[in-house]
């Protein structure tokens, strides 16, 4: 038991060690100008410096809060909409082209309009993240819900279940896996959109930090920002997977 845990930990660690080794390798190979690639230990030193002197945690908090709120609001709206589209075929026929139209628009392209309509405050950033999460979530929800087989509903009917009981005891349990998948997809999309949303005159936030650093060509700061975004996204995804595994123990392929 202990051996397998240790092995899994090492297996998970190996690619990271490999990535750092590759990073050093590229820097020392001489193919690329050294001043363009800060060494991992320099980035680590910068990380500590930003953490202690520049309030990196404030940026981390600002960005995480935006992503969290954006995803929560986006999914809160995507669940009922995606559910209705998946459940009622006629609704899909008229809403499908619309959804695909808006889904295809990259959030970055909408930034000028968002500034015009929502200003440059927190609200504008949330709108961008909401937009990205909502459309990612809607698609996952309605694809999932439209694949629910009517068999379980028929079974419940023959046992005497009323409309409301069928909704609460059959449809909701069958929808939960799709809500969790929608959350995971939306989280990924929202982190990817974060830097774009913080292009809008953000004071703090990891995206803003990267933007400001690029103005002064502070490559090590950019690296710190990128790694922080990756790490937080990874942690959030791990938490969500834990929750999924707990809620979906019944699934044939449990999310391990």
């Amino acid at each position, binding site marked *: 038991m202990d051996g397998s845990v240790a092995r899994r930990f090492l297996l998970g660690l190996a690619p990271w060690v490999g990535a750092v080794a590759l990073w050093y390798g590229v820097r020392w190979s001489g193919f690329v100008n050294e001043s363009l690639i800060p060494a991992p230990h320099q980035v680590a030193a910068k990380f500590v410096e930003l953490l202690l002197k520049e309030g990196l945690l404030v940026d981390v908090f600002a960005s995480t809060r935006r992503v969290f709120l954006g995803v929560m609001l986006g999914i809160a709206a995507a669940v009922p909409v995606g559910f209705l589209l998946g459940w009622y075929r006629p609704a899909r026929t008229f809403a499908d082209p619309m959804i695909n139209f808006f889904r295809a628009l990259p959030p970055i392209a909408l930034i000028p309009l968002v500034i015009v309509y929502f200003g440059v405050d927190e609200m504008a950033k949330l709108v961008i993240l909401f937009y990205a999460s909502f459309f990612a979530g809607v698609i996952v929800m309605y694809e999932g819900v439209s694949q629910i087989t009517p068999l379980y509903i028929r079974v419940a009917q*023959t*046992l*005497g279940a*009323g409309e409301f009981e069928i909704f609460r*005891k059959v449809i909701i349990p*069958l929808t939960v896996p799709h809500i969790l998948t929608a959350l995971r997809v939306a989280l990924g999309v929202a982190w990817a959109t974060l830097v774009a949303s913080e292009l809008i005159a953000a004071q703090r936030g990891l995206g803003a930090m990267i933007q400001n650093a690029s103005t002064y060509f502070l490559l090590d700061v950019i690296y710190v920002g990128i790694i922080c975004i990756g790490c937080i996204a990874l942690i959030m995804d791990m938490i969500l997977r834990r929750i999924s595994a707990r809620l979906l123990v*019944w699934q*044939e392929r449990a999310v391990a």
Partner: protein
Amino acid sequence: MSTASTIHRARFDRVSLEFATPKGTLRVVDDVSYDINDGDFIAVIGPSGCGKTTMMSMLAGFQKPTSGKVLFDGHPVTGPGPERGVIFQEYGVFPWLTVKDNIAFGLKLKANHVPVAERDQICEHYLALMGLSDFANSYPKHLSGGMRQRLAIARAYAVKPQFLLMDEPFGALDAQTRANMQNLLLKVLATEGKTVMLITHSVEEAIYLASRIVVVTARPARIKEIIEVPFAYPRDESLQERPEFGELRSYIRELVMSEYRAQQAQLSPASFSE
């Protein structure tokens, strides 16, 4: 047979059912009439795709006849209900509930009015009867096909329907499990008398289990013949060794095979061009 009390439970009264398809209307069931009396075990047998399941589906309340009437206890069937338990070919056990919660599902519904105190007792009874006690807290993903089918039966039984509709319930099981399930069904029926309508394509299964066999034609399903099975209950597997069983089997098999050949003849090469 129980001719003493012939109470009609279900009645098919000149029932026909048609589907609209792009190629025109397709008649699936054609002018079918028969009664199912209290305590009957009716097996409906015919070539696959002939419309047997559609008949059951109308009595279950999932489909409405195009013409004629499907009556249950004297009233036209308007939808599914707990007094008509259905056991589906695909089992339909709820994967998100444990074995015990699957059985308890119907007991917790408002329509069945089962007091909380009784639920546990009923669950325990059917868990034991179906040999699932050791798996009470397992999820269906850990069960074999035979166990899932036993769970589906237990769940249907728990709400005490007077009438059971079974759509090829053992079709997907291996021969050994199938024989076990048939014996279990006979045993359970002996203790809790119920009226059953079984859809099957197995002649042996129909004779072994049923009190009456309805042989239907290739699509559209019409009644070809209704056969009283002359063997008294309780039955056991030695019945299948008796010469009368063999004779009846040959007779019904010939009826079904002639319909099967008719169906094959309908499938002219032109119909493969779809």
